[in-house]
């Protein structure tokens, strides 16, 4: 792994003189290891966005109620806005930036032209990746069940449903 010891340079020289903690947490994100210098209680979302510059995961509510920040941690779909750096240190974090270009979910989202504003879509996609890992051929009802806590304010739901079905088919074809 690379980039151990990487820290954000954005604010160098501006560190607050009252700093009291020295807490380095090792995060493994999209196959790269980073040491981040933040309080352990910092939500993973803000560590990803503000420390690592990975802005694919979005802030939508901060209380785990909208799904815009959904990312994978090991094999779970996690609301990174209510999950802390200390809890997830050392685990395998995958954000939308870590999805391969040819990932069936990405290809399906493009083919179905799912997005309107696009803000919720990284979270929707990561929830779909999680669903398809455990259930490669979900029914519409299973798609609805798995994605019901991911809000899309623009109303792209029926394209999302179609894209998950397409991603499932692309995934099965790739596996054959």
């Amino acid at each position: 792994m690379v980039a151990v010891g990487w820290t954000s340079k954005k604010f160098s020289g501006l560190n607050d003189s009252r700093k009291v903690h020295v807490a380095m947490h090792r995060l493994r994100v999209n196959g790269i290891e980073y040491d981040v210098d933040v309080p352990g209680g910092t939500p993973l979302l803000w560590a990803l966005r503000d420390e690592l510059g990975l802005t694919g995961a979005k802030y939508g509510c901060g209380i785990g109620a909208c799904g815009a920040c959904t990312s994978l941690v090991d094999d779970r779909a996690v609301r990174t806005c209510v999950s802390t750096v200390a809890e997830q240190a050392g685990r395998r974090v995958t954000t939308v930036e870590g999805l391969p270009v040819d990932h069936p979910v990405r290809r399906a989202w493009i083919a179905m032209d799912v997005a309107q504003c696009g803000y919720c879509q990284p979270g929707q996609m990561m929830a779909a990746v999680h669903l398809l890992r455990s259930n490669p051929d979900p029914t519409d009802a299973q798609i609805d069940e798995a994605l019901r806590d991911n809000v899309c304010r623009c109303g792209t739901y029926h394209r999302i449903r179609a894209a998950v079905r397409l991603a499932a088919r692309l995934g099965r074809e790739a596996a054959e």
Partner: protein
Amino acid sequence: MITRRGFLAATAFVVSVPMPVSAAARDLRPNVFVRLTSDGEITVTVPRPDTGQGARTAAVLLVAEELSVDPDRVVVEQAPGDTAKYGPQMVAGSSSVQQMFQPLRTAGATARCLLVAAAAARWGVPSGECQARDGFVVHPSRGRLAYADLVADAAAIDPASVPVTLKPPREWRVLGRPRVRVDVHDVTSGKAKFGIDVSEPRTAVAVVARPPWLGATVASIDDAAARAVEGVVAVVPLDSAGVAVVANRTAAALAGRAALRVTWTGGNTAADSRDWLTELGQALPAPPTAPGTVALQATYRLPLLAHAPMEPHNATASLTADGKLTVWAPTQDPGGTRERLAQILRLPLGDVSVFATLAGGGFGRRAEFDVVLEAVTCSRAVQRPVKVLWTRDDDMRHDSYRPMSVHRLSAVVGPTGLPTWRSHEVATWPLTVVPFFNDPALVRASGDHFPYRVPGEVSIALRPAPLRTGFWRAVYAGQFGYAEECFLSALAARAKIDQVAFRQRLLPPDSRLVPLLRQAARAHCRPGHHRGVACHVDYDSAIAVVADVGVRAGRPTVERVTAAVDVGVAVHPSGVRAQVEGGVMDAVSTVLGAQITVREGRVVESSFRDYRWARIDEAPDIDVIIAASDRPPGGLGELAYPPAAAAIASAVASATGRAVTGMPVTGEVG
């Protein structure tokens, strides 16, 4: 106040502004929208922000069509706020594609005609013998020349000396064809940059403590605990109604706000939105004298609605010590925001730059610039760029809501059951974010688009708004259209006439709605379901909606919606369908449960947990039929919501046997 230390700090960094480079001599830049370089790069500058409505895609397609290039080759650039240069830039009134259609095509065609003229001159042949095709100018005997090789020659030609002709629609290869939007790769890779993703050097983040109840103001601030939070750099009183906690990072700003102690005073701790609705009911204008017996009268009571875009409000501002202001924001109106900021801050317009990022939804709310002013105040205080981030709670509880309204409709009915006279009395509030809107004539112009041949009267009473109100998708048409179409459905049911036939008999025979109703009904045809129908005409476009509702476990469920829409030329068909689908889902959400309520002076709803916006398991199948048309594009973004809401509500009434009395149709309104 600008101190010397502040001045040094503020000038010690360079803000990365995409400066309009003076056109290199060899670039072809016949207007502000198109640029070609001799390296073969083609750039389209999009005058309107993209809030999800697809302005960027439409602009690229319009230019690419006329320039005869593959849209995938085009680089998209967002125009900074500058109405003198780019024309009106506000995303409002469903006008983006409508108003870009002519100028952006002309921009592309101008470049094409110059390239053709350059090739003709080089070959020494008449221009009429040359054709532009897929990035080349071709001639039957001379072969072909790539645009890149013609750029320098074309740039030397005076654009005014070359006649510009637009392609006839039969030659279109791009417009109206299936294709995905230009931002799909950025969105699906996480690279798309929204306002919240702005990351200028040294940017601090601020979150704001806001009044916990309506009208409260700051009595005192104890900021010791907030300042003790690691990373907090300042606590900045914004005005009497907000205190910003500024920090190096978002998490610290949030923790700082949680630690801040503000004592609030004044305001209204008794306000209750149910009382407001009662008061509006009492304020209804007296009905006019009917020319016969009123056969049916109905009253509809509509709630407050929040915009709740997925990307909460935010803006980044950098006000330097020498009075230069730069703003990056997910705004619906970069040009207007720039002009208002210059006025309010008394800065020369040339010292104010406003850059529109992608916006995670807008729905009307981002036409306002309150959050930008907050960012400016914070930047001035800490002499750094500051991004102000509204939390979801801020966004939901401090919105500029769609006004509540009460509608009373009456009809005199002829022997066939068709209405021969109608009246519609409305009591509602003005939009406080635009004081000039406190005028019944403007409210009527926004709301009343009744397309049927039924004479009658509409009268409006405006009461002072008890809280901040603003533009919400479709504005007053969302209320008026809903009430009118629900009432028409009730009249059809009373007359026992099919909903489609009833409307067709009331429409002028040449109405665009007549064929749309037929198309929607035919495509939708499926027996055994409870059905609602509604129409709407606005923004030079027309739509007919048919909705099926079932009842599952005692709850109404929207099963299927078909919409036939005539938007003139459909520049980007997938985008056209998307706008209709979005309007339908707003309708599902607001008819079946989402509303904002106020109790004891506080907005109750604070997130998507309690603002009951629809989820994927409530999403119907949606079928959008786009009528073939050669008319110039009409508006679309706000067209589908009013009729979709009325069709769904009427279908619910059919399914449950309970007449529609307001919105939402389940539970208490207000």
